[in-house]
């Protein structure tokens, strides 16, 4: 269960933090540019953090949280492959959801 006090703190801290990220250049830095290494790190934040967050959710998706559940693993692979191939978020999410739904219906 999520603690309500920390929930509200996180909502507002995240709101302020996200705003500051968005306002950083537009509002404060102006036309000055960041050092090359910082921009290079920024380029890879999302493609590093998001896979790191989902990997354990996929790898430990069975009921005992000890290993992957086959249908979920296959749905994850399908979603990623379709997304990488079509570059289309919606097509990828639909294929993943259909694979998951159908797989659980047939084998679940």
């Amino acid at each position: 269960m999520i603690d309500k006090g920390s929930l509200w703190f996180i909502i507002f801290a995240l709101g302020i933090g996200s705003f500051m990220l968005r306002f950083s250049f537009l509002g404060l830095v102006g036309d000055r540019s960041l050092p090359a290494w910082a921009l290079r790190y920024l380029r890879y934040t999302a493609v590093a953090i998001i896979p790191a967050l989902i990997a354990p959710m996929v790898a430990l998706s069975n009921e005992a949280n000890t290993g992957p559940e086959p249908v979920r693993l296959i749905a994850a692979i399908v979603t990623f492959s379709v997304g990488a191939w079509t570059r289309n978020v919606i097509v990828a999410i639909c294929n993943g959801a259909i694979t998951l739904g159908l797989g659980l219906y047939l084998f679940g």
Partner: protein
Amino acid sequence: MTSTTTKSAYWMGVRDGAPFILVAAPFAVLFGVIATEAGLNLFEVMSFSFVVIAGAAQFTALELMQKETPTLIVLISALAVNLRVAMYSAAITPYLGTAPLWQRVLMSYMLVDQSYALAHAKFEDAPNMSLPQRTAYYFGTCTLVMGAWFICSFLGAALGTQLPPSIPIDFALPIAFLSMIAPMIRSLPHLIAAITAIVVSLICINVPYSLGLIIAGFAGMAAGSQTEVWITRKQEAAL
């Protein structure tokens, strides 16, 4: 372009932004549903979507909060996921940086993947647009996406508790994130960053306080960044 009035620039933005409703809406519904399932009430869900407006960061925070992760780690991880908006901010500053402060505050609040992508492409394409036209176009691209984000968060929250338990909502988040991330893997350094992050996060699976996520994230960023440096050096050596 010079003949375009401010008003028509706004409506052009609205039209160009319309297809992106299809991208924002499902994530907003999903956030509403997952947040409600996690025990948030309607007011909390709407506040979250209204204050933060960042799908990936909201999902990350929600997932980590459910695992009783320390607040600081939740914030660092969610903001790291959202760091790309700082890049967007840098990218649109040459075009919009001279607008009045209150407008830049509003622009910043609404700076999301869609508004950045549309506005930046348009400003590069049409260098003759005046500042008021650019501003109007930018706010035009935000209008429908923002509306869809709030309305669909509400719909998701209203729907949340009424979903049949047979729907595997536990796996909605991985599917959503995978579909978001796959099109972002555009080069070898991106791929190396993602693979490194996955491997390190699985190795660090038992590190307490979800710190493994931060370690894996940094490892992935360093790997991607270093690969880029190597590739650039190789290309320069080949010339």
